[in-house]
């Protein structure tokens, strides 16, 4: 015997009003705990007998302001190299990845070349490549070739980073479901068209989160060019330091880098998050 049921469903539960006590207590506790821990750390550092010297050496406001114009000017070079290198890497690595994904037996030598390229440039420190190209090639004095260290240093960065980015693209290509290739082939598209219209648009979308990380990493690694004399932010800060024996200029450069990379990192997080949401929706 089923007990008698009410004729209408019960009403939805009443929404409780904002409960101050429930919200306030955990908030207070976490604020207090932050205050205690960070306050303690600050007290420890500032109470140290060496602190005034550290402050003078690294955080001197006068020196910082004095160094800012030239360091900022150098940082502009960083940004320029970063943007140009990014564009070159994006295109060159994509070309490599597409060649590596071609399936016809005729493409075997080209596939092999790409594999060798990746092994070589992923296996060498970017710093070594920058020195090798940036000092080495201008020293050859070959007519017709640019002799600027900036150009060849940037060239080395592109070679090195393309090896990584190629692998990211390739992972994106491999992640496209095999059925997509079958469907495109069955429609009569040739191999190039299958790649261009069916595979690549999906592969690029797959690759975006990983590419964002590379973009952030590249933004900092452009500073490697300072070792071959390119007057970027780090180099300018170094020059200032060597004449004043004060490291505050380095801190200025550091702040400029953070100013540029932190928003990029947040953007990368956001893109990754959006991509995850999209995938979950697709799976559900």
């Amino acid at each position, binding site marked *: 015997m089923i007990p008698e049921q009410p004729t209408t469903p019960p009403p939805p539960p009443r929404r409780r009003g904002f409960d101050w006590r429930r919200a306030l207590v955990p908030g207070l506790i976490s604020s207090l705990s932050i205050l205690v821990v960070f306050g303690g750390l600050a007290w420890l550092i500032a109470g140290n007998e060496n602190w005034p010297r550290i402050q003078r050496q690294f955080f001197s406001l006068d020196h910082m302001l004095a160094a800012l114009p030239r360091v900022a000017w150098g940082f502009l070079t960083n940004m320029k190299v970063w943007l140009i290198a990014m564009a070159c890497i994006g295109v060159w690595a994509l070309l490599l990845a597409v060649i590596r994904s071609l399936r016809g037996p005729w493409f075997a030598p080209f596939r092999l070349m790409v594999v060798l390229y990746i092994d070589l440039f992923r296996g060498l420190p970017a710093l070594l490549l920058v020195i090798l190209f940036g000092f080495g090639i201008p020293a050859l004095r070959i007519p017709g070739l640019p002799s600027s260290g900036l150009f060849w240093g940037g060239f080395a960065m592109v070679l090195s980073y393309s090896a990584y980015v190629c692998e990211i693209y390739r992972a994106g290509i491999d992640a496209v*479901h095999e*059925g*997509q290739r*079958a*469907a*495109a*082939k*069955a*429609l*009569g*598209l*040739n191999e190039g*068209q299958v790649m261009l*219209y*069916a595979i690549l*648009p*999906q592969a690029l*979308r797959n690759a975006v989160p990983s590419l964002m990380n590379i973009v952030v990493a590249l933004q900092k690694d452009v500073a490697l060019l300072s070792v071959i004399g390119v007057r970027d932010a780090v180099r300018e800060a170094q020059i200032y330091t060597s004449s004043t024996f004060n490291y505050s200029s380095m801190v200025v450069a550091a702040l400029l880098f953070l100013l540029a990379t932190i928003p990029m990192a947040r953007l990368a997080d956001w893109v990754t998050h959006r991509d995850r949401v999209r995938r979950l*929706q*697709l799976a559900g």
Partner: protein
Amino acid sequence: MIEIRGLTKYFGEHLVLDRVTLDVAKHEVVCLIGASGSGKSTLLRCINRLIEPDWGSIRLDGVAVEDPSWGKTGLQRRVGIVFQSYNLFPHMRVIDNIMLAPRKVRGLSRVEAHDKAMAVLALFGMERFARAYPEQLSGGQQQRVALARALAGEPEVLLLDEVTAALDPELVGEVMAAIRGLKAQGLTMVIVTHEMGFARDLADRVCFLDGGRIVEEAPPGALFNAPEHPRTRQFLERLLEGGRL
């Protein structure tokens, strides 16, 4: 129209197709049934060369499918295929999915391809969804788009690879109705299916595959009501027990 002779295919050491011989006449609908792994889908995919057989031949109107005279896309123009998992391109709108092959393979202009695409969508009552992305559609709607995409190339033969297997039961009907409409138009079809009711209803001939061989081949009435081969009988009895017949 299609003549398959002695078709044999190994996946490694595993024999998937064992000397399959089958003829499909123009306007005929042939259903391939059998347990999973019996080689049905492999046989289907050999017909449009998504899979290359190891031995044997497939001829379309007397011309071998691997004949160079087909060119790069000649065969795919005449043989369309629809997959179990739809395989629509997720980054393209419905209309662009359908226009892709007419534009890039057959060289139609944008306007011509658009008209063609809308016409095939109308065939399945899907015009409203032309601007939608595949992921915004239900499984049944996606599969009807996949049918429209295959038909936009005006194929003479349509291969259907378990097109209802991934659908929720209440969505199977709409896709089946669409395929029934194609039979009425006289399209030649080779259909791999697990829906016995569908095969019984639609097929001119049903082939039962077991271990890579066609062990029995008969009109649906005969095959379902009076199967001759013991393996066919066993297969149908099992479906009957499972309540799928």
